[in-house]
């Protein structure tokens, strides 16, 4: 009897450990080299998909249905992503995934799956509220995608570089922002947001939560961009001057650092940026106007 209980307990511990290991976050990885070239979808069928899995490749695939309006908007977002980041994704018709490895996971289209070494690491679910913005907003999708996949030039990008080392097009030279000041004991936060953007709301909540403890270290300037064309143009000017090619909100600049999107995993990075830069900080707006 005691032996039986011991065996069952051991099995339960082993099962729990396996479950925990399986849920551990995947470290960001590179796809195969050939997927970092000029962006375009490669149409495949079930046989090609099975071959990629058999060969233990790392790739990303869009699951859609031809001429279906439910796929078309997400298709446009992915096309833009491929163009901006020079990547190549596969695409497969939902009607072709029957009997494949994908069928176990993908219940509805559109969807998007990321494979590492032939195994699926994550995918978007069309019936999950958490994934809705990832289908609709460029930065939301980019934020999710780059949790898993390294972009090709990330290894060469040093985000501690200051503006004196990076020559970017100065599009702020002639911009005049009233009520924006520079304080040598505070870093300016330029926060571009959209009215109705859920991640922007999350960021507002976060900023509100840190104000009491950290408010003495920063000055916050916010710009709504979805209903204000001037602010939308301003965001592009700030982003270009920072060397970014952002398409959406939230987009935030803290000193010499910029952030595309926002999630719980961004919070510490925001705090680090504030605390490392609040004294005599670099400011993209004031530096540009002084050139």
């Amino acid at each position, binding site marked *: 009897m005691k032996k039986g209980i011991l065996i069952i307990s051991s099995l339960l511990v082993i099962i729990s450990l396996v479950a925990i290991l399986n849920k551990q976050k995947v470290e960001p990885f590179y796809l195969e080299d050939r997927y970092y070239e000029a962006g375009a979808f490669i*149409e495949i*069928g079930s046989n090609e998909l099975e071959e990629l899995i058999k060969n233990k490749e790392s790739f990303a695939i869009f699951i859609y*249905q*031809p*001429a*279906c*309006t*439910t*796929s*078309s*908007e*997400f*298709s*446009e977002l992915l*096309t833009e992503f491929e163009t901006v980041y020079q990547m190549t994704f596969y*695409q497969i*018709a*939902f*009607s*072709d995934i029957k009997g494949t490895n994908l069928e176990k996971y993908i*219940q*509805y*289209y*559109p969807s998007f799956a990321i494979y590492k070494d032939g195994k699926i690491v994550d995918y978007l*679910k*069309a*019936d*999950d*509220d958490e*994934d*809705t913005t990832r*289908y*609709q907003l460029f930065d939301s999708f980019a934020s999710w995608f780059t949790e898993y996949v390294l972009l090709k030039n990330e290894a060469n990008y040093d985000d501690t570089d200051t503006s004196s080392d990076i020559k970017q097009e100065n599009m702020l030279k002639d911009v005049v922002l009233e009520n924006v000041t520079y304080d040598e004991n505070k870093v300016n936060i330029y926060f571009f947001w959209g009215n109705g953007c859920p991640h922007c709301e999350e960021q507002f909540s976060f900023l509100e939560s840190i104000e009491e403890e950290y408010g003495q270290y920063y000055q916050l300037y916010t710009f709504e961009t979805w209903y204000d064309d001037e602010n939308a143009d301003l965001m592009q000017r700030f982003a270009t001057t920072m060397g970014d090619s952002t398409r959406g909100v939230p987009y935030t600049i803290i000193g010499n650092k910029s952030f595309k999107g926002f999630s719980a995993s961004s919070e510490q990075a925001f705090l680090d940026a504030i605390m490392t830069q609040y004294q005599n900080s670099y400011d993209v707006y004031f530096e540009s106007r002084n050139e």
Partner: protein
Amino acid sequence: MKKKCYKIVLVLLLCITACACSNTKLAELPKPEVTDGIRGTFGIDKNINESTIDQYLSRKDSVYRDMRMLIDPGNYEAIGGDAYLSGFVKGFEVVPYPYLVNVSGLPDEVGDTYTGTTLFTEEDGKYIANYEESMEILEYLFPKDKNIFLMCGGGGYAGMTKTLLVALGWDEDKIYNVGGYWYYEGSNNVTVKNTSYGDVSYDFWKIPYHDIDFDSLHEVLK
């Protein structure tokens, strides 16, 4: 003895009447409610969708419409996939949405879907009738006094049909976006794609189909 017989007959008559009444009374439908995720943004219903529609078929107070084309004219050689209506749910009758309103927004490599004449033209959210008969046809195919169950491939055309109908005065609480045929795994599937002759053909004769002959209609003078 006689009294006993009468009582038995009376009870039997009451039972038969009760059964007849219960058979004709239809269960009340849940109010339309969109489902979660991006499927909800297409208007697909949370309660009456691909996985539950079998429970709601053959209702006398309802009509069932599949909004796909028999053959979509998009350039499928460019992107793969099946342009044909290769199956449908029994009870649904096909009314191609692209015949009702102009469609846009498909991926560039597909090109355009049907670009011929339509009953209505959509401009800035407003639907303008192109033919004198446009509203009459719509009211005939989508009776306002019935519940309307809409379906297509993935829920897109069905959602757009609901938007059209509601904009033109239909009761939104009587219209259900059931979602997409591609997800249907119920017991009322009718297969149209036929491979039994060694090639691929389509048994379109199985499909209850509402054609709209635009040549016979009268254009609205503008």
